């Protein structure tokens, strides 16, 4: 949590009991968060948890029903036009016109910010080079692949050099290579320009890779907020790891022997040859491998497993991520376009 030592100068976004209701559904439930300047803050949660709604309120696209928030020092309700000067939004949808070229799109949106012509030209070139799209400047966006479009989507949000960048599921629907490239750009922009970033995602790995701090959101409430390590430790306790072993000649005897080790907390037998072992302490690995070898077991595969979002989520909320996604109706009538179905979206 943000310490009492942080002054307002160091805080980019502050929300106090921010709430948003849609008829009987409470999408965002009294959320109080502080985001520090220059940090990459992750909002982690399943679909329908309220991530997008929260982002939309902070971008002044939706009005809260309760609570308040300041973004870049300006109140989102009373000084909304000032807020807009300092933010950029990389939304779930591609904010661009297919019929225009990359350059034309950037120019159009640049004009919304009253950027002088020469500066705009320079900025466009700079941004296109940043994402390695300078050769595509004069090609129609309609001809781009999804990965390329998303790159343009990201730099479009940077045209006005915002202090704060909101990214709503920036790698959803992308192939692994594109996802990794986008994450690289995000990191680069954060480091070079000290841009504060708020990222929503439902992938723990992504949150882990990019975010300084992560807030876990469930049913509109923030249920945990900390660094990635600390969150994982909540599940497993400090100093604990989970290992997956593949032992072709696994016997019940070996399993029992492993279970009886002091450093081992829990063993789950997945099938005839796979076991997951939760163990604690620096000696754990040695103990486990020794036990297996001494009993003529052959280890064909060994892997260290991290707690996944599932684990963290289950631990904190007491229910699975998947339960929630099937319980809730994932399609809400947002005023600005249809919500994406879980996990899949057409770009």
């Amino acid at each position: 949590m943000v310490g009492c030592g942080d002054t307002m100068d160091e805080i980019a976004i502050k929300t106090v009991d921010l709430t948003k209701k849609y008829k009987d559904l409470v999408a965002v439930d009294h959320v109080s968060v502080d985001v520090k300047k220059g940090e990459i803050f992750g909002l982690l949660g399943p679909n329908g948890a309220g991530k997008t709604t929260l982002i939309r309120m902070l971008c002044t696209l939706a009005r809260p029903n309760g609570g308040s928030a300041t973004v870049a020092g300006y109140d989102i309700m009373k000084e909304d036009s000032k807020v807009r000067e300092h933010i950029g939004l990389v939304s779930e949808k591609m904010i661009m016109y297919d019929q225009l070229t990359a350059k034309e799109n950037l120019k159009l949106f640049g004009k919304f910010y009253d950027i002088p012509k020469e500066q705009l030209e320079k900025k466009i070139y700079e941004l296109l080079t940043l994402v390695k799209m300078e050769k595509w400047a004069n090609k129609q966006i309609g001809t781009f692949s999804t990965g390329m479009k998303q790159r343009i989507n990201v730099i479009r949000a940077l045209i006005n050099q915002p202090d704060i960048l909101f990214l709503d599921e920036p790698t959803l629907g992308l192939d692994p290579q594109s996802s990794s490239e986008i994450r690289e750009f995000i990191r680069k922009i954060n480091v070079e320009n000290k841009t504060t970033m708020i990222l929503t995602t439902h992938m723990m790995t992504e949150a882990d890779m990019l975010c300084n701090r992560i807030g876990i959101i469930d049913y509109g409430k923030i249920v945990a907020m900390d660094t990635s390590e600390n969150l994982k430790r909540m599940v497993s306790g400090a100093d604990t790891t989970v290992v997956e072993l593949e032992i072709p000649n696994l016997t019940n005897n070996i399993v029992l022997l492993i279970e009886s080790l002091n450093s081992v907390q829990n063993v789950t037998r997945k099938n005839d040859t796979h076991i997951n072992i939760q163990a604690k302490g620096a000696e754990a690995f040695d103990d486990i491998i020794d036990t297996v070898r001494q009993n003529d077991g052959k280890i064909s595969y060994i892997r260290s497993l991290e707690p996944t979002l599932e684990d963290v989520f289950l631990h904190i909320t007491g229910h699975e991520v998947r339960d929630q996604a099937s319980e809730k109706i994932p399609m809400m009538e947002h005023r600005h376009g249809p919500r994406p179905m879980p996990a899949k979206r057409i770009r």
Partner: protein
Amino acid sequence: MRVVMLILMPLLMMVMVGFIFPSSNSIQNTPVAIANLDNGPLSKTFITGLETMNNQQGYMILSNATDFDDIKIQIQNGKISGGIIISANFTSSLQAGHWGNISIIIDQTNPQMSLMLQSILSAVIQQLGTQYAMWNLSEPLPRIVPYYVQVEGIVPGNPSYFEFMAPGIIAMTVMMALMTGLPHAISYEKDTGTLDGMLVAPLNRFSIILGKTLAQVVRGLIQGVIILLLAIFLFGVTIYGSIGLVFLILFLGIFSFVGLGILITSFTGKEETATMIMMTFMFPMMFLSGVFFPISQMPLAMQYIAKCFPLTYAAQALRKVIILGAGIPAISTELIFLAVFGVVLLIIAIPMFKKAMSR
């Protein structure tokens, strides 16, 4: 909704066709002006006879006019539906044994009505002529029916029903272009997400909707021009009034609708819904606004409804300018109504749009 349309459509079609052709019942209390250019007694006799017949049958409301130009202006202003001119040498002609000249001036914007009026007036004058002849049996007249009737219009040519309909259709098409174009434009931006891009930028909300609207206005005007050109070159319609006025009317027509278009667009989630609501308005308006048949032929209740629609005024003004060559004074009521309607709707619509955009 669709079932309602299924039944309503044929019903309305029938009603519409019925109203296009006036029955003699609809010729009641038609305002007609009489200009008596003759100083002699015989013209006064004629007028008295006319008034007596009229009192019995009530076809017309008679009023006075000074001359042809006066009648012309009154027709252009929509004050009268026709005029009767008794020529200056009426009495002297008759006394000399020649025909007395009577001219019937018709309103060419309403060919059906004019036709009816013509035939009724001709019949009436015929009767009067016979009466006159009977009174003078003692002296056989060289002419048995002494009154000679000729029919004139204000502008040359004889417009047909097509000419009556064309201006209304132009006005209607232009307005519909706006009504369908605006929701489509905004829904497109909503769906692709670019609307968010605009809303997140420090752009004035008003300028967003203004931009969208202007684009649709231009589109509507271009469509109007195309139809106008088609009407002129393919169908021989002649514009007797000024083209500038035509554009002014079209522009004001669109302007009066802009507010409504914005309102409907703001509050509907999908383009289909917006278009459906738009259609619900457009449909009765098409039939009731005097595009396909003059409103004077509709029952009084429907006439009042028609008077609430901007399309009624736009179509009427266009008709006057295109067919009759009317100038601004003649269409001032229509222009004012269109402008006021537009302003009022805009004042309501713009704050609503701002509110809807930040739900």
